[in-house]
């Protein structure tokens, strides 16, 4: 685990760390990955035809329109403007 890998993971994870935090995270993640490396000791191959928790996707509910939750309730956890979510400008 090096700084480049941590930077890459921060990009994938959308997280920021300052230099001091990054050093600590790198040490912790190195120890964690060392633990994860134990899976490399065993010789097994995943059979992806066998693993869906017995879920029958043919039994999912029909794709029918149904009344949803009221808009004002869904927007109550943010500060909407004109019934819209507000985000920073993305296009200059």
């Amino acid at each position, binding site marked *: 685990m090096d700084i480049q890998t941590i930077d890459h993971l921060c990009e994938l994870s959308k997280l920021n760390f300052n230099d001091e935090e990054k050093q600590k995270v790198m040490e912790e993640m190195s120890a964690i990955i060392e633990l994860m490396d134990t899976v490399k000791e*065993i010789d097994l191959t995943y059979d992806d035809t066998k693993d869906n928790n017995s879920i029958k996707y043919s039994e999912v509910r029909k794709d029918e329109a149904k009344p949803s939750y009221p808009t004002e309730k869904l927007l109550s956890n943010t500060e909407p403007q004109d019934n819209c979510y507000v985000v*920073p400008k993305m296009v200059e």
Partner: protein
Amino acid sequence: MDINKVSLSGLRKALDNKEISAVELAEEYISKIKTVDPEIEGYITVTEEQALESAKRAQELIDGGDSRPLTGIPLAIKDNICTDGIRTTCASKMLESFVPPYNATVIEKLNEQGYVLLGKSSMDEFAMGGSTQTAAFSKTKNPYDTDRVPGGSSGGSAAIVSAGTAPAALGSDTGGSIRQPSSFCGVTGLKPTYGRVSRYGLIAFASSLDQIGPIANSAEDCGILLNAVAGTDEHDATSARVPVKDFNEKIGQSIAGMKIALPQEFFGESTDEEVKQAVTDAAKEYEKLGATLVDCHMSSLKYAVAAYYLISGAEAASNLSRFDGIKYGLRGEGRSFDEMIRDSRSRGFGAEVKRRILLGNYALSSGYYDAYYRKALALKQQIIKEYNEIYEKADVILTPTAPTVAYRIGEQETDPVKMYLADICTVTVNIASLPAISLPCGYNSDGMPIGMSLVGKRFDEATLIQTADAYQRNFAAVPNKYRA
């Protein structure tokens, strides 16, 4: 009526016989919460006003002769289960002000029975941890010794039941989060088969492993609560199309002839001697009741913790990518979209949640996917295979719930690797989608509870409850000072 000594069926009788009204019962618990919870910090939010209102409505049902098993029964609900109009935080700064616009299916089912919500219980942030000390607020203490952790992640629910500030609670279990805190706090916790209970409205951590379940004072009480919340749900495609019967139907039936397997690997060096002794003694009790003990092995156990953290981390990284600060949750600052999302997540998530996201993205990233994530999935198949082999010669499996009793706050929860390794006894159950129940089987030399786990075949919760109940009938539980 002494609320410290009653069961859910006892409360039902007292309410139906008008020995106490639903409002009086709710008031008794609210009063106890006000006295005890400042020390235990089991609750994040106490819903006093709503509790009294719903108790009034419950009393009308009781007076009309329409009571159901949980009508007027007060409960605590883990704070990762959405409650319409009531703050649901996941013990995270990210959701500190989040008020869900809908109820989880389990809440709808409890409402149908007219239950009384006492409040939302604390937990490790986003259910990631085994101590409830990763909570951003309400870092719960163990009622048997407030210098010790209650376990986690459902540490709030377990401590609340243990301290008697609710007669039962709902928790959730992704890798042991119902069973381990139940073990640490000396109560009974049931993790149902994956799919038995709808996950709709449970804030997702690892979707292939998460399951909601009860924490209570006995196996029978767990069955009553599971009866209320189990079943197929059109909002959750992973909820099982398996009929729900009475999970308590086998209570009282003899366990003579039952085969109980003890996989040797669960009794290894990492498990405390006192824990091993207590679980072994419990096995002997089962022998006296007519059960046969079966020696067996689970050779892949040493890889289970790594497999669990790779799978759950990968799913957590994906599930938690929804927290961007736009539609709900903590909103950060930034001049661009990317800056704002990064700031929201960096300020909203705590250290353990960030580590799990980083680990998950590492396991899923290009160049590492086959070596880690797919290998973990292969191990999942191997663990299922080994469980199936054990069930060819046994009905249930008996293991310790945790390698140790509850440890002192600050002793190990700051070391992630140590914390992860402590999950060794519980994670394989989630990996294999099995049901399991943890119940107290003794106390160590410091008076801290020791828990044992019974693991069953898929959808055979009734046998687990029967087996746990058979032990509990002769077990003398030692209450903590809040229940004495």
